[in-house]
Structure formats: C-alpha cells, structure tokens
C-alpha cells in the first residue's frame, strides 16, 4: 500500500506537520445487497492534490467518488471532508456538498434551463447570492471554460464538449474546494475530448483539489500527483504517474494498462 510520505505535496516545507486533509477516507466498505462494492478503502487527499482513479468497469471507482459527496451512502468506515466527518445528518451532508463540485459522465445539465440558469440556480438557492451577482460569477466561469457566448442557450443546443464545459462551470460557480470528475469524457466523441481535458488541466494548474475517474492516461501523466488503480472494489495500486506507467508493481495493473494502452 501507499506510504503517503513519498509524496512531496504532503509536506513540502519539510516541517513535519501534516497539512489538513481535503478528503480522508478510512476503512471504507460498501455493499449493494450481497455485492461487496468497496473493500477496505483508505485514501488521504491533501489540499491541491490531483488524483486520477482508473480501473475496469465495476471496479468501484465511480462508487468511491460518489461516496465522497454522499450520492452513495457508505456502510462502514469514515469519510471526512475538510476535517468534517460525513454522517447521516442532512445539514452535514448539505454542508459537505457545498464544498464539493461534481462533473458527471452524462453532464446532467438541467435541460429546461439555459446554461446561465444552470449556473446560477445553486448559488442563488443555496448561498442566497443575488441574481445579478450570481450571473456575473457565472459569466466569468463560462468565459473561463471558453463558452461565454453560450450563456443564453439551452443545453440541448450545445455540442457534447460544450455541455461538459458548461457543467464544469456550473460546478465551479459554487466555489468548491474539491472537484470530483466521474468519467467526464466517456460520453464524448474522440475529437471533442481534448477541449474538456484542456479545461480540466487549466483547473488543475490553478491549484484545484481534484479526484478524477478517467481512462485518459495522457491526462493522468500530465497532471496527476497520484494514479490509483482499483479492481473489484479494492485499491490495488497507488503510485506517482511516472512510476505507475513505467513500472507497475501489481500483475493486475499491468494487465489493465496493457489493455488500455494498446
């Protein structure tokens, strides 16, 4: 398993004091009926860290990040976000979700709202930000994901790549500390994937804490601090990308990489 101290981000100043974890997962287990979906997961993500999680379908990678903002309820173990443990308390869940932005495989934009409406609905309703201010914020993020001209359109009028960038902007409008990406490019045509990845890379370069479930290994190489390989609900291997790709330790990791990096 991983020795977290290998990673310079943990303690760059060399003070010996651990910075607060953005996400701390200890002994996490989840079952769907008899199916053991997550098996003794331990994971500590520090602020500013970029994690890429990969693995075959059904390996539990999506379930893992969906547990972090409680779209899935875990059965055993603990998840803390920003030092606050996730419990059944709806207030606590709500507060945690406010700190975490999520981007889905199928965008999940609200089809009956314009892009701008999609972006302002949560800031206005959750953070009680005034419309004018929320719209200003939304427009700045839409500019940042380079689709400022699409603000007044409905999601159905945009291409897949534009929709996913709009979804990223929508998540950013809540000023999250952490961003979760659940296979953000899997539903996109190959030629469009790059525009979404570029947006994610820009976000990473701005210092956002990110957990990305993706099979885009080029992206992992470029920005990940750690790559995590999961299989059958367990974390099989964790390594810095250079080591992960050049020198995978586990047989299953090698098999997976052989399949995916034809």
């Amino acid at each position: 398993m991983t020795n977290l101290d290998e990673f310079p981000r943990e303690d760059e100043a060399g003070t010996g004091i651990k910075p607060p974890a953005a996400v701390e997962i200890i002994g996490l287990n989840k079952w769907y009926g008899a199916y053991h979906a997550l098996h003794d997961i331990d994971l500590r993500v520090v602020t500013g860290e970029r994690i890429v999680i990969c693995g075959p379908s059904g390996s539990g990678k999506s379930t893992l990040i969906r547990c972090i903002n409680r779209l899935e309820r875990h059965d055993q173990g603990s998840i803390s976000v920003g030092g606050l443990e996730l419990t059944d308390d709806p207030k606590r869940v709500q507060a945690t979700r406010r700190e975490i932005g999520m981007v889905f495989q199928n965008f999940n934009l609200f089809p009956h709202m314009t892009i701008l409406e999609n972006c302002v609905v949560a800031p206005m309703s959750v953070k009680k930000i005034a419309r004018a201010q929320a719209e200003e914020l939304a427009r700045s993020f839409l500019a940042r994901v380079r689709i400022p001209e699409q603000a007044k359109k409905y999601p159905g009028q945009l291409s897949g790549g534009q929709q996913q960038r709009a979804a990223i902007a929508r998540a950013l409008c809540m000023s999250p500390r952490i961003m979760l990406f659940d296979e953000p490019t899997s539903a996109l045509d190959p030629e469009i994937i790059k525009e979404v990845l570029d947006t994610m890379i820009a976000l990473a370069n701005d210092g956002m804490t990110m957990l990305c479930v993706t099979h885009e290994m080029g992206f992992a190489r470029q920005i990940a601090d750690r790559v995590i390989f999961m299989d059958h609900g367990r974390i099989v291997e964790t390594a810095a990308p250079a080591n992960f790709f050049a020198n995978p330790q586990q047989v299953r990791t090698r098999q997976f990489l052989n399949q995916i990096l034809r």
Partner: protein
Amino acid sequence: MQFDVAVILDNWQPLADGFARTIGICTVSLPIGFILGVALALLRLHGGLVFATFAAAYVELLRNIPFLTQVFLLYFVLPEFGLRLSPLVVGFIALSAYASAYAAEIVRGAILSVPAGQTEAGYALGLGYATILRRILLPQVLGYILPTSTNLAIGLIKESAVLSVITVPELTYEAQDIIGRTFSPVEIFTIIALLYWGLTALVSTLTKWLEIHLQPYLTARRTG
C-alpha cells in the same frame, strides 16, 4: 323518422344548465384530484414503508374498482355511517378521489421518467429535495404530465356522466330528464353527445397549445 330540432331548442335551458354543471364538476375535481395526486405520489416515492404502502393501496383500490361502483359505494354506504350528503357532494368526492388515484400515477411515473442524474446533479450542487423537486423535476415533467393529464381531464369529463345515476343534475341527467318528458331520445342524445365531443376536443386542443408554449427548450434547435 325525422330529426326534430325544436325539441332541442325548447329545452336549451336545462341542457345548458346540465352542461355548465358537467364543466363545473370537472373543473373543481381535476385540480383537487391533482393536488391529492401529487401528495400521494410523493408519499409513495419518499413516504417510508407505512405511508408508501398506504398510498399504493389507495391508488390500486381506486384504479381497480369501476367508477360507477365507487359512486354507489359512497352514495349508499356513507348514510349507513350517519353521513348524509347531497348527490352533488358525493359526486364531487367520488370524482376527485378517482382523479387523485390516476393523477398520483401520472405524477409518480413522471418523476420516475426524469433520469436519476438530474436529481444527483441537484444534490451534488448542494440543493435540497424540495428545491430539486420544484426547480428541476417538476418543470421537466410538465412535458410528460400535460399530455397524460389531458387524457385524465377527458376521462373525468366522460366519467362524470356516470354521476347521472345518483341524480347529480349534470348533462346526462338533464338529458334523460328531458327525454322522460318529451320521448325524443334521438334528438337529445345527439345533442349531448355533440356537446361532450366538443368539450373534450376543446380540452385536447387547449393542452396541445400549452404543451408547445410552456416548454421552449423542447423546440429550441441546435444552432451549433
């Protein structure tokens, strides 16, 4: 055999009264049924075991017993328990209850028809269920609810004719009353059939128009 228009003209007043009452009964019962239906649907989806079972039992009972039998049940059985209501009130109750069971299924089906990702995206943004329901789910299910509720509204208009059996003075009752006096079933049944037909046609035209105008995003074309 000839068609005697005079019979209709001579009796236009009771016909108009009956027609107005038919419209009135349905106009009141449909929204009441719908409000109850939304409540039942939410209970069935999120009410926990006890309330969900209750809602399901209510809906299944009303959907699996003929409306006429329900009307008789209310009309003849309520007085046994000391509750004496006028036929009109019984009619309102029966029609609203009937509408609520169908509306509950419409609303439930509609909510289930929205992809789970929509609710998840709402939760992920930190929205509460009430907000998700109001801002995200309900606006999207309009497109599903409108056409099916048109069918429900038309169903209610037609079902309301059954209330004539317990002497609610709606259109069919008035028609039978006139026929009893004039012995002209052909003329009177023809005119009330035309009135019902016109009314249901009007309702479906109206909602088709609404459907188009309430959901601009469905007709917005992709412009690139």
